[in-house]
């Protein structure tokens, strides 16, 4: 219980740090981003929009403390102002429309990539010196590929050449978004190629990490003893070696998640997927700072939640963490 509370405390502090960073960055930047923005969009902005920009990026003639306070108030009430690139839609609405796509696609793909990579890593590490070792350089190469480049190749081969999948988008034109079969089946069909890209690009990292841990764990006495006990190979591999080897991978989930999510987000852009990555791209192109900031906060919070879940899984899997 105390372990849990401590982890929870850590995530609260991290969330606070991220939100504060978001506040400080534009104010640390040379020049005056808030005024630049207002000037650039001169005539387009209502007084309310100007006010929102100033709250987010710096108000003249106001103390930092009170700016910080107002900023927090806006964050808590999800008031991120109006988006320029989707003018005049409020930022929060733009995010609401795109977040589900991303959560479903990237959420599922990250989990599949982790499970698949860990299982493969376990098999490769289990018997060294066999043909399976050839997977190591291949996966090293795969994990060095930029996700978005891999997406370009996937489109070229599977969409443009083979016509198996659509080249871009999230669902067929003219379908009603909702819980109806034509839409869902179309969304799944459109999602396969992006999903494949993310899984293939992310699997290598998990595989290599798990393989190394597996090799280290196989030298442990308890694995040797499990073998001496005459247990089945599957039992030794999963419950004795794999079960222990996977712990650092889960602990390292935090380190890799940000990277995987970042890569997956850029992949969305290539597929013009209606998720948060594509919106991020449009926001960056249109220098839509309110939207950029809000997306950063959204992704950060999502990653923090995923990390907390990974931590809970770790505590559940390793009895040694439960005490003290």
């Amino acid at each position, binding site marked *: 219980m105390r372990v849990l509370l401590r982890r929870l405390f850590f995530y609260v*502090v*991290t969330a606070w*740090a*991220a939100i504060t*960073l978001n506040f400080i*960055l534009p104010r640390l930047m040379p020049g005056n981003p808030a005024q630049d923005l207002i000037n650039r969009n001169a005539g387009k902005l209502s007084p309310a929009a100007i006010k929102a920009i100033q709250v987010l990026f710096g108000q003249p003639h106001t103390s930092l403390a009170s700016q910080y306070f107002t900023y927090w108030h806006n964050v808590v009430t999800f008031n991120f102002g109006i988006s320029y690139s989707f003018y005049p839609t409020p930022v929060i609405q733009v995010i609401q429309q795109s977040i589900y796509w991303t959560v479903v696609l990237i959420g599922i793909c990250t989990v599949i990539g982790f499970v698949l990579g860990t299982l493969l890593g376990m098999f490769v590490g289990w018997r060294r*010196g*066999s043909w399976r070792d050839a997977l190591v*350089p291949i996966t*090293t*190469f795969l*994990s*060095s*590929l*930029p996700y*978005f*480049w891999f997406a*370009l190749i996937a489109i*070229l081969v599977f969409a*443009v050449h083979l016509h198996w999948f659509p*080249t871009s988008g999230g669902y067929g034109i003219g379908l009603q978004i909702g819980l109806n079969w034509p839409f869902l089946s179309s969304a799944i069909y459109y999602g396969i190629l992006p999903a494949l890209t993310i899984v293939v690009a992310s699997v290598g990292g998990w595989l290599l990490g798990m393989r*190394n841990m597996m*090799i*280290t764990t196989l030298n*442990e*006495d*308890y694995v*040797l*003893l499990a*073998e*001496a*006990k*005459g*247990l*089945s190979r599957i039992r030794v591999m999963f*419950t*004795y070696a794999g*079960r*222990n080897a996977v712990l650092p991978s889960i602990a390292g989930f935090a*380190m890799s*998640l*940000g*990277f995987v*999510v*970042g*890569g997956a*987000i*850029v992949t969305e852009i*290539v597929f013009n997927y209606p998720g948060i990555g594509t919106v*991020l791209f449009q926001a*960056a192109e249109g220098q839509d700072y309110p939207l*950029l*900031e809000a*997306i950063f906060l959204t*992704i950060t919070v999502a*990653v923090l939640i995923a990390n907390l879940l990974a931590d809970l899984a770790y505590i559940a*899997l*390793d*009895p*040694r963490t439960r005490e003290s």
Partner: protein
Amino acid sequence: MLITPDVEALAADPDEPRPGRSWLRGLLAPKVLTGVVIVGIFTVLAIFGPMLIHGDPGSITSARLQPPSLRHLLGTTQQGQDVLTQVIYGARISMEVGFGAGVLTTLWSLLVGLTGGYLSGTSSELLSMFANVFLVLPSLPLVVIMAAYLPNSGSAGIIIVITVTGWAWGARVLRAQTLSLRRRDFVEAARATGQGPVKIMLYDILPNEVAIITVTFLGSVVAAILTEASIAFLGLSNVTQWSWGTMLYWAQVSGAELSQAWWWFVPPGLCIALVGTGLAFINFGIDDVINPRLRSAGSPPRRRPRARMLSGSLARLARRPARRVAGAAGSAAAGPGAGAGSAVLELKNLRVEYRGGATPVRAVNDVSLTLHRGEILGIAGESGSGKSTLARAVTRLLRPPAEIVSGEMTYTARDGRRIDISRLSDRELRQFRWEEISIVFQSAMNALNPVLTLGTQIDDVLRAHRPDMRRVERAARVRELLEMVGISPDRAGAYPHELSGGMRQRAMIAMGLALDPEIVVMDEPTTALDVVIQRQVIETIAGLKDTLGFSVIFITHDLSLLIELCDTIAIMYAGRIVELAAADQLYQRPLHPYSQGLLGSFPTLTGPRRTLSGVPGYPPDMRRLPAGCSFQPRCPRAFAACADQSPPLIRLETPDPASPDPASVACLLFDAAHHDHPEGLITGGGHA
């Protein structure tokens, strides 16, 4: 120099030889060389490429979207720009950002990691928290935001942004490394001499982290190249500055993948992946050097030929109902050779080699032994003498590069069937294990699976070998076993870390007895325990042996313990048995000079006081054993012939009339051919 053979740490290691200069070999591995070549080529390309090539990567021509040709080796873009020229100029920017950010990131992580790890208290905690917060933040959106504020700032801006977002991982790794180094003796010593913290960090800790720092640096370079590509691909950096990422940006914006202009976007992506792979390969090499476990062990264990059962079928043997032995020597002996005192395990000329290095190392050399039913056979020797390797050979637990190269290991079941252990197939071996021979390891902490409860780990054995047993029956058996070794049955739900050292070792013994095996191999089961607990465990073993009637192979460096516990004792030196005798006789009249030395290095718990002498010199280097008798360089009684004749283990024909069992010894002092030697048959070190 006196050496008492009491080196627990080494004893845990099954006599594995350490090849010298392995780090050099690790770095010269083909994978590492490939990595160095790849990275080298791209570095040369980045530095000199733009000087050698004529033409501007941005110059627009009318040759639009041309596939590769002699004129344009990699084709052209939509604006008619030459792709090859862009790739070469792109190498410069991408490598510049990659290595620039790599250096800055590593320096910053080093600063935070080193100070955070070396200092203690609040400042260290805060630095750690700081790094952890940055570690969890998803860096890409952060980079996007920061880059968005830095338009057209060129490579320098991107390098700073990547550094700010990417330093945390390295800081954490270096902090962990510093923490472990901080407690080492040489750092403590430096502190004791009054060196300042900065000096210690720079001169004592930093040099020991070079490998880890290099790994961190190369990792940061890969991450930086990928991040730069992402930023450029998003159009957030200066899109007129040619990097591999910018090329991909233009290709994507112009829909190159839709117009099938693969030559435009395939080369830059491949370049990124190749540089990344090259750097990762170099890292593998360094990893292998840092972590020897990744390097050791090469080929998979060779499949043994199918089992040749000497008689009967093993399947039948394994499926027999659980046998309870009530009396001391077992009930109703069935068939020949099954009674108490008959042979249960016979080793004949067993030879085990480690075949990793240039020359195979013979860890067990020509060992022949017989274990009798109900007997405790002790095997004693210094660490590196091959005793643990012998234990693992008997249980077929050797891992490559260790291999049984010759010899026989014959197991005789209670009903007289004989099984050649070294010829069991994988499946037969699984059935044979634990049912007939179980093993207890030295460190129960390491030998128990930390994430499973005690009960589960014992239950596993029953589930594997007694598929017909019901859950309730298995649970009852687990409780019974725990009670047998003096552990409260309600501890079945405890995890290993929740038990004391003595309890863990008892639990190991309970586990070893789960199937009522004929033989229990105990590999230094008490070495890690303190004397009082050690005594309790020994008494438990002796008591259980008397009630259950199993045989024990007891391995330890603690000869005095063996003398109290065992019936027969074998002394091992450099892979060979040098003396084999009844425990009592060995204590009264040790024959081999080495046995005499060993006995002289231990105080006995109950015996009379005597002067401790020990064995002079060091244990031999198994890779370069001396000619003749391996012990001869350390032997106080060596004579000329010892240097060129390797003495065989011979049974003494003229035993002391007082002792009933003849002893065997491998020493030229007892060889009839050297009877002229003054000390000839006058034996004994005068211990009695």
